[in-house]
């Protein structure tokens, strides 16, 4: 694969550390050397125009996409690889699966399992992957549903829930296994405008609790309000990054200024 140097990890406190990440689909290069660091308890926002590569970057973190060059570390492991003696070799499917259970993911289109109730969706990972006893899982599942304000909809199927409710169930599912980091891939983009608020307020709660989060979104004012850091990605590179204050209030890069002007 590639040849990373474990000694050169200049962000020792980062949960997600990305160095010079490159990714192409066939001939087309979407990520052209991304650097990014998410510390424990940080809410990092990735903004940028459609097609800039931000979703692809997010999906690389839990191996839904592979990358061709650079380094992508989550906690103490190199994504897509595992140690074999002194060498790094491609990670086994079982290793990747185990690692993924420690990374929550919230999708744009919710992707709830339609044949399971809200509660069954939330505890699906606990029961089917972690092999937690059913009774214990249900108890935890009810706590999680209460946390997203949907305890009374535990027995409802996704088709009986509004988009906002479905996404809140999806968030509960993503945090069920106490992941080290949660990835949000445009969590409010598929929602009717009046349903965006309920999802954002659940996310706001998680940020307050100190959850480590990496969020791709078009909700600029939400990023400005609650973000610890903001990355503006343009044409596969980080054009500008810093605090929301710097990137959103006083952008310096011309592409950032142009993007923010367009989106507001």
């Amino acid at each position, binding site marked *: 694969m590639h040849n990373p140097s474990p000694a050169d990890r200049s962000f020792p406190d980062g949960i997600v550390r990305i160095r010079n990440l490159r990714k192409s689909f066939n001939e087309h290069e979407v990520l052209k050397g991304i650097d990014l660091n998410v510390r424990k308890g940080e809410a990092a926002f990735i903004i940028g125009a459609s097609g800039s590569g931000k979703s692809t970057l997010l999906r690389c973190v*839990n191996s*839904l996409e592979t990358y061709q060059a650079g380094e992508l570390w989550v906690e103490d492991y190199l994504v897509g690889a595992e140690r074999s003696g002194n060498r790094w070799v491609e990670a086994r*499917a*079982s290793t990747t*699966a*185990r690692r*993924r*259970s*420690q*990374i*929550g*993911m919230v*999708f744009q*289109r919710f*992707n*709830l*399992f*339609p*044949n*399971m*109730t809200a509660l069954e969706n939330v505890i*699906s*990972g606990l029961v*089917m*992957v*972690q092999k937690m006893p059913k009774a214990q899982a249900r108890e935890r599942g009810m706590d999680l549903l209460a946390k997203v304000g949907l305890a009374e909809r535990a027995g409802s*199927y996704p*088709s*009986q829930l509004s988009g906002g409710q479905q996404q809140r169930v999806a968030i509960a*599912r*993503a945090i*069920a*296994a106490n992941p080290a980091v949660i990835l949000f891939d445009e969590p409010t983009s598929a929602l009717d405008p009046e349903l965006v608020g309920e999802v954002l307020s659940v996310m706001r709660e998680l940020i307050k609790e100190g959850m480590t989060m990496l969020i791709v979104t078009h909700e600029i004012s939400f990023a400005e309000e609650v973000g610890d850091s903001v990355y503006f990605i343009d044409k596969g590179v980080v054009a500008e990054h810093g605090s929301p204050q710097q990137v959103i209030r006083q952008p310096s890069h011309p592409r950032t200024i142009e993007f923010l002007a367009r989106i507001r």
Partner: protein
Amino acid sequence: MSQTETRAEDLLIHRRSGPRIVNAIIAVIAIIVVAVAVQVFIGTGRIRWDIVWTYMWSPALFNGVGTTLMLTGVSLAGSIVLGTILAAMLISNNAVLKLIASSYIWFFRGTPLLVQIVFWFNLGLFLPTIELPWTSINTNLLITPTTAALLGLLLNVSAFMCEVIRGGLISVDKGQTEAALSIGMTPVQALLQIVLPQAVRVILPTAGNLAIDLLKTTSLVYVIGTREIMGSTQSIAAQTFYVIEMLVVASLWYLILVTVATLLQAQLEKRLARSQGAGPVQIGKVI
């Protein structure tokens, strides 16, 4: 006030009687056509209904019905296994497996079933013994009308079943697999525990139609002397010359079996829909 009421009465739309009269005339004509047809075939036609009734419930026919059900059941079960394996090969990333599976489908869908059945029955002509590293088998002992029929039906219907299963699997949104992976499932787990249960609801109606089709298609194997419904009636017809009567017996039995199978299929679909919550509306959503 009274003015509006009068106006409302004026607005009452009266039905025209023309279309209804035309409808009635068409219905009467249709009834006459059907009655004439029935009269020609049943009334003046010389079908011995007492013969039909007697042979309908004869031991030879019961054996035939049993054989038809066995051929259908075994080749259906076998095709589900082989079809699933072929579908898995088709959606895999292994180019060789993909090529093998698609060649299989190309061949077995591209040649007539009748040709395949006759071919298997005559296998011994060019392959007198099947040589395996550890043993050799006399083909003529292995290939009987029943085994040749089973082989032909199973291998053929598997090609169609594979397409049905593959269609079901790819009808499930890719997001479902991604969500399953994201909670820590392995790809195999995601396929078996998340995708397959959802695919079944798409697969079942089509597979049911395939099964009902297969039930009738088994009649083809009478050409190699298999005594299923068609074979039994034909051998009786050859001895008694009740040709039409025996065709009627065969048709009635197929109608009975297909009707039962259709009812079973509807029951199964209903139960599946109930056990999976919000009913058929969801299928549309999954697709």
